[in-house]
């Protein structure tokens, strides 16, 4: 799941310079689950824009904003999109890019895309994968240090953790602490001894 968060409404307003007729498009997948681009959020956005004096001609939620076959498919969400001078998209950056490529009017994001994460056991989980293109998460008990350690350290922790908490964000567990616990749990602490070569980027 792509983890996104809502932009402050003031920032969205600031970016709307003479927007004309606005259509607000949400996304039925990750953004809906995270309550940043589902039906209630789209409705609230339309209301706030109207209260701010903007002309809103409609709002809707695409099945998946990142997966829209054609302009015709986009218009199936609501034919009013054709009349819009500005579209506000409440989805991750992929959805914003796809919608932008299908229309010839300005498209503005209403969300910030933060990471590739997930939702499990009632919790939103951020930064689970860095999409590096060469997965070796199994060597770390499924706790990927490239994604979950802010420094992406593959050969062990830095010296910055305090009581098992990350140097960068004390509310967050040190990824290497989690790796250790997980490897211990599955009886594979031997994997800690492996020395990992530098990652090949651009490959």
């Amino acid at each position: 799941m792509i983890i996104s968060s809502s932009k402050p409404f003031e920032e969205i307003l600031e970016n709307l310079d003479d927007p004309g007729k606005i259509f607000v498009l949400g996304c039925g997948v990750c953004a809906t689950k995270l309550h940043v681009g589902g039906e209630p959020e789209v409705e609230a956005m339309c209301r706030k824009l109207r209260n701010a004096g903007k002309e809103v001609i409609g709002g809707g939620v695409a099945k998946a904003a990142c997966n829209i076959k054609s302009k015709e498919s986009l218009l199936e969400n609501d034919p009013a999109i054709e009349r819009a001078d500005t579209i506000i998209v409440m989805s991750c950056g992929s959805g914003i890019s796809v919608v932008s490529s299908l229309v010839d009017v300005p498209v503005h994001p209403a969300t910030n895309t933060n990471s590739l994460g997930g939702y499990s056991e009632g919790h939103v989980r951020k930064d689970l994968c860095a999409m590096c293109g060469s997965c070796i998460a199994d060597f770390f008990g499924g706790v990927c240090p490239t994604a979950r350690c802010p420094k992406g350290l593959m050969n062990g922790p830095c010296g910055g953790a305090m009581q098992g908490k990350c140097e960068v964000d004390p509310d967050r567990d040190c990824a290497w602490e989690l790796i250790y616990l997980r490897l211990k749990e599955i009886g594979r602490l031997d994997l800690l001894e492996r020395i990992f070569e530098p990652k090949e980027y651009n490959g």
Partner: protein
Amino acid sequence: MSLKTNVTYYPAMPSAFKEKLLSDEFIVTSEISPPKGVDVSSVFEEAGLVRDYVDAFNVTDNQRAVMRMSPLAMGHLLKERGLDVIMQFTCRDRNRLALQSDLLGAYAMGMENVCIMSGDYPTKGDNPGAKPVYDLDSVQLLGAMNQLEGGYDIAGNPLESAPSFTKGAVCNTEPDQPLQLMKLEKKAHMGIDFFQTQAVYDIGHFETFMEGISHMEVPVLAGLIPLKSAHMARFMNEKIPGIRVGDELIARMESSTDPAEEGLLICAEQIRELKKVCRGIHLMPIGHYRHITALFEMAGLHEKH
């Protein structure tokens, strides 16, 4: 006409610092920070105060992610004045291209002593929006240095001439941290000439740590930060990872009428103890340079030069 120029190249000059590491001499290094600006006179002044007691100055690299003059430039300027330096090298600000080219540059300017570290995250410093690099981690950077020494860059391309470094790395000293020990093992495995530790306050604890890593046979320089007040001790306990000032020392600082003097006295006692335990000390005076000569004399460390 020949395009060749006369280049002065120092092939594998024996490093004075490396020789000391291999000797029985008790080693003293002192941290020194480049200026936040272009005037280096205060750095020369600080270094000048203690230079006779110190084997090498450890030049920090945007320490605590606070932007300062490059350690490569500062190291060169100190070197020009006849001081031996250890360049700190963090993985935070440079990708593998920049790390390798700076390492070659450092060596060409006579700075073969390098101490590497991951580096504090940019949000800890004064340019919090900086892009964190960490292209290589410290273990991988040691690997890159080995490659350069072997005449190749990290991608396997041959060098025209190869450096030879004295390689150091940093470590915490909690004996009960399996992950820290694991990383230390990896660094030692990559081939290292010395370890420099986080500030030590509990010598008994440190001895246990030293016993735990004795099989690595790497010279250890114990980190020392003289205490200035009980408040500073509590602050470090709370905020600085890997530092643990015991209650007894805090009580001593608290009951003293001259805490700064007491801090130096404690530090001198620690140095005397450490002489029996490890190969040397790495002093982080934090603006304390004026009193360091007195500290060294109290600790029985005399002028070397």
